[in-house]
């Protein structure tokens, strides 16, 4: 096993489980570290990144690109973190940010609301009502976030490989079950999965660099890497933008060949006259 992501509602015991698994398997346990690292590498503030991962989308947000940019940064950093090491990631949206990465074992931890309220009251010194409100708020925010960014239902068990309910099963026991699974054959990294991850590291890195260039309207740009061959596709606003993207990609080490399928959007008056 290479990468384990742990998703959970706030105060559901996910962090403890992550730490237990990491300790037992000798994996690195990461969460906020990814944001710290991203902030350093792309020179943005950590709060902005955290906001991109947590803040409920607002009405006109589709018109701005800030969140897309931050998510591209976070994704690139996370991919780098999981490239060579065995990792337990219990930060936000791991199963979505690491979508399509091979050998990711997606776990979700759930617990009944009583358990979570007690946990929140204890740890944050909240009253019962405050704890309840806090948990509801965070849950709702996360549900809307997931719906907005990835268009999936956060509660849908289909997004995970294993959902563990901590009502009956103690955290240590859940930890045992997961570790047992992780050690099974067929979940170790293969040469093929290593290649796929390396490709994705390069692709997400390039995508982040493109996002970092404020002069490019990059919303629809997609980057796929296969060995050193990088395919860029999508629609941009001008030929200059397309050139700029190609320059960014060409300058990066590891890129041997560019297959550009970029299209330039026709101006509205031209579409009209045709």
């Amino acid at each position, binding site marked *: 096993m290479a990468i384990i992501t742990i998703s959970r509602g706030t105060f559901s015991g996910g962090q403890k489980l992550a730490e237990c698994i990491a300790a037992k398997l000798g994996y690195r346990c990461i969460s906020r570290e990814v944001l710290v690292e991203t902030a350093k590498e792309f020179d943005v503030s950590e709060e902005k990144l955290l906001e991109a991962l947590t803040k409920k989308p607002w009405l006109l947000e589709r018109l701005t690109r800030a969140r897309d940019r931050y998510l591209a940064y976070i994704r690139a950093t996370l991919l780098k973190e999981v490239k060579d090491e065995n990792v337990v990631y219990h930060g936000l949206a791991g199963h979505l940010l690491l979508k399509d990465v091979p050998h990711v074992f997606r776990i*979700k931890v*759930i617990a*009944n609301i009583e358990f979570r309220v007690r946990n929140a009251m204890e740890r944050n010194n909240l009253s019962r009502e405050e704890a309840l409100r806090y948990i509801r708020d965070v849950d709702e925010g996360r549900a809307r976030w997931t719906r907005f960014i990835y268009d999936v239902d956060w*509660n849908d*068990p*289909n997004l*995970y*490989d*294993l*959902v*563990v*309910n901590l*009502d*009956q*099963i*103690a955290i240590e*026991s859940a930890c*045992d*079950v997961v570790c*047992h*699974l992780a050690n*099974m054959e*067929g979940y170790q990294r293969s040469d093929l999965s290593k290649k796929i991850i390396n490709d994705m590291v390069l692709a997400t890195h390039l995508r982040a660099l493109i996002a970092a260039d404020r002069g490019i309207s990059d919303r629809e740009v997609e980057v796929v890497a296969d060995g050193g061959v990088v395919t860029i596709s999508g629609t941009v606003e001008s030929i200059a933008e397309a050139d700029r993207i190609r320059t960014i990609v060409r300058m990066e080490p590891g890129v041997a060949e560019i297959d550009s399928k970029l299209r330039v959007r026709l101006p509205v008056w031209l579409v009209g006259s045709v």
Partner: protein
Amino acid sequence: MAIITISRGTFSGGADLAKWVAEKLGYRCIAREVLTEAAKQYGADEEGLRKALMEKPGFIERLSSERTRYLALIQAALCKAVKDDKVVYHGHAGHLLLVGVPHLIRVRVIANMDLRIASAMHRQKLGRQQAIEYIRKMDDARSKWTKFLYHVDWQDPLLYDLVINLDNFSLSVACEVVCAATKLEVFQTSPESQKVMDDLALSTDVKARIISDPGIKTAQVEVEADNGIVTISGTVGFQEELNRINEIARNAPDVRGLRSTVRIETHWALTQGRYAR
């Protein structure tokens, strides 16, 4: 040692998983047999039982108590079938009918639609469109059934201890997960947890005997059991039926004592209908 229920959508691979797990652990594997048993023990028709367990509630069904009667019989038969432990039940609603038993492991199996469609096409020799329709229909019925009878959302993962997604896991890995869970301390059968199971089995059996008795038509009773002592509460229309209830309860196997708080209460409809005298 434990009791495992495996809940799943149709063609999600749950039946195969149940067989694998049972084989690996040396447990019994049951599903539909429970209906046959219920029919035999309590003299009910199997088709009616099947419908009560599988079909979605009809429009005016809220007015009838027939389904709850059938379910009480099924619950009793299921309790009897699993109470000796080491068993995998992969029929419907196991996690709901056996609620409260501490050494019960509630497993749910899910798979993405493509996998399920492929499986349905292969096994039932259906076309793709037919397969999709079939799966949708079954899922819809299951979801309405659960909402109607238990007021819960069938998909809610909180109803289960483990939800296993077969998209990426092979059956053998899923089987490993379930087997690993049976080794956990919390699911071990203890004298206390066995008592809960036995109490449930006894109370559901007595209730099933009462409601399936041809001589009892007006009883609205609840039955509880505590170490062989049975407590019956509720109402009944006539003294004769009350006597009959007590007789049934006293003669049921494993009953060591009986407490009854059943009151006689004549419903207005009975005073003018065919029960009037």
